[in-house]
């Protein structure tokens, strides 16, 4: 037998539980995309776009000199060395510029790395257009392999006048564990094309064995 008061309590409790559930869903499914969107629009977290910019015919503004500093940050730097040979460049807005970052896999295994960009000042973030970047994709490196990673960019001529220099940093993260399939595909690919150096070919079976072991451990 339910009284009127019991019904009120039930209805209210149900509403409150629903509110709690909605807050949980909001936190899990709305907040993170909202945050990403907010950061993309405002560039507030210093992340430059991870989409290739389609270069349009732009007038090079020779009246402005923009200094661009490059920083290479390594996490787990016992696995690789990562550096920016050209520490800084002076460019004009609208000018297509190419530079390189250098990475060397100093470990004895195949690795996959992902570069994550960050830029200051943050209000320059949305004016730094990359037409080509190694950061768009994961990079797979054979044991001992050294590689020059290319970056091609155009500083937008709309860049706020107050900005005279900007700093772009790339941090490399080890994503080998999550990329075992891609690493194997790359190994097959290189054997097929015979692109690898001879000594690399010799170490290949061994390296892939190590890699499987690593995965088994990871799981």
């Amino acid at each position, binding site marked *: 037998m339910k009284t009127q008061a019991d019904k009120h309590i039930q209805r209210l409790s149900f509403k409150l539980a629903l509110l709690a559930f909605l807050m949980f869903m909001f*936190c899990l499914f709305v907040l993170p995309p909202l945050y990403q969107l907010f950061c993309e629009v405002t560039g507030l977290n210093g992340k430059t776009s991870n989409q290739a910019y389609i270069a349009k015919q732009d007038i090079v503004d020779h009246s402005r000199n923009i200094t661009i500093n490059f920083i290479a940050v390594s996490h787990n730097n016992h696995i690789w060395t990562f550096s920016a040979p050209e520490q800084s460049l002076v460019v004009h807005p609208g000018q297509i510029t190419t530079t390189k970052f250098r990475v060397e896999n100093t470990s004895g295994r195949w690795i996959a790395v992902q570069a994550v960009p960050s830029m200051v000042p943050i209000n320059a973030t949305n004016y730094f257009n990359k037409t080509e970047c190694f950061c768009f994709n994961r990079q797979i490196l054979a044991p001992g392999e050294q590689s020059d990673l290319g970056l091609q960019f155009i500083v937008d001529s709309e860049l706020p006048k107050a900005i005279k220099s900007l700093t772009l940093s790339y941090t490399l993260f080890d994503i080998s564990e999550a990329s075992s399939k891609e690493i194997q595909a790359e190994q097959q690919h290189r054997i097929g094309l015979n692109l690898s150096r001879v000594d690399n070919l010799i170490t290949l079976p061994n390296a892939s064995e190590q890699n499987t072991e690593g995965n088994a451990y990871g799981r």
Partner: protein
Amino acid sequence: MAHGPAPGIGRWLFTTNHKDIGTMYLWFSFAMFFVGGLFALVIRAELFEPGLQIVEPEFFNQMTTLHGLIMVFGAVMPAFVGLANWMLPLMIGAPDMALPRMNNWSFWILPFAFSMLIGTLFMPGGAPNFGWTFYAPLSTTYAPPSVTVFIFAVHIMGASSIMGAINIIATILNMRAPGMSMMKMPLFVWTWLITAFLLIAVMPVLAGVVTMMLMDIHFGTSFFNAAGGGDPVLFQHVFWFFGHPEVYIMILPAFGVISAIIPTFARKPLFGYSSMVYATASIAFLSFIVWAHHMFTVGMPLAGELIFMYATMLIAVPTGVKVFNWITTMWRGAMTFEAPMLFSIAFVILFTIGGFSGLMLAIAPADFQYHDTYFVVAHFHYVLVPGAIFSITAGVYYWLPKWCGKMYNETLAKTHFWIAFIGLNITFFPMHFSGLAGMPRRIPDYNPLWADWNMISSIGAFLFGAAQVLFLFIVIRTIFSGRPASDQVWESAEGLEWSVASPAPYHTFIKAPEI
């Protein structure tokens, strides 16, 4: 209907009685208070001198983490829920809580959560060691395996708090005695109503953030992993969106307790009742828009720093209204200084000091200097220890005679107060100085520059710990051999809870009282 409690252990396991459940909450939080206190003493013992003497740095980090988690979720929050369970039905003239069986459940899942959390100490890799704020990626990529157990424990605590909050709101909104309008409710009821809404709004966010951690650790998502396109700063935003309302969850019920005690011992009605209600509601609202003042140093744009800085300072206004009202209630009152009143006055003074250091921290440019130093530790211990802990202690002394029908020993209680008051200030006041001198938080070893302040802090901590052992002794002594208390207990205490017998009968207000 007039039957007593069931015999044996079944009384406690299957009880749906708000008084039994309140008692269990209070004893549980008391036990957790001692566990968390023990961990704090390990920290203070290690910091007594520079250098590593007693524990390894890894274990030290586990101690700071567990101390924070247990004090916040195990001691302070369950103590206030316990007070709510005991007192809300008595204060509004209800026979019990609105959802008695859920009430039982929301208590009984807590011991499991905390057994798991404390059990992580014995797991391979040790207990969580990333601080109570568990910032990612420290708590995801670099965490010990026990982090999964920690996440599960947090989920259970969150479920318990949400169920408790639903119960409290349903009770207050539906079960008031006829004539008890909203603006006639005691302030403890009001502050708990607002706190319960805060809990329902933010505990799911806590559950969400640990769920995201769980998915990052085990299911390959990248919410907080920069390599996979996530952002560690997102963690801080979500955590503090929960974390800032959480600190008000720990202090608003305290405001209610103090607003009940000061009028009794000043023998004057509370000054500015309605302004107290509105101030509490404004503090609750503001708590949702200030979270980023915990993260001034993450690299926010100037506009963000300014918005969060001014919003934070705005909180001083309603808080100032409250402090003003308490002081004005005491003004020209016929005051007496029994233990609950001593703790309440100490609350008003010391909480205000904590509020001032909070204002200093709210100044964004100054915060860059104070960030992550012992100054912050001093600040939040000044608002939580004399804030939450002192108000709970005051509430226990104030209502203990009603709960067990016996009067505590006033001399012992005053001794407890003075030892705790002196111990607390010796412990936490020097932390302001070591912090301003640059001592970082969460370090087991430190520059000898800060040695003197740390030694003083450690001595104070052991004094404060001793005071709490005395508190336990006083409570036990009261239950077993206190002299009988009258129904009224305090000369000019007002409210429905004093209209029932002491000790409060197992069932009260089966017939709604006349107001």
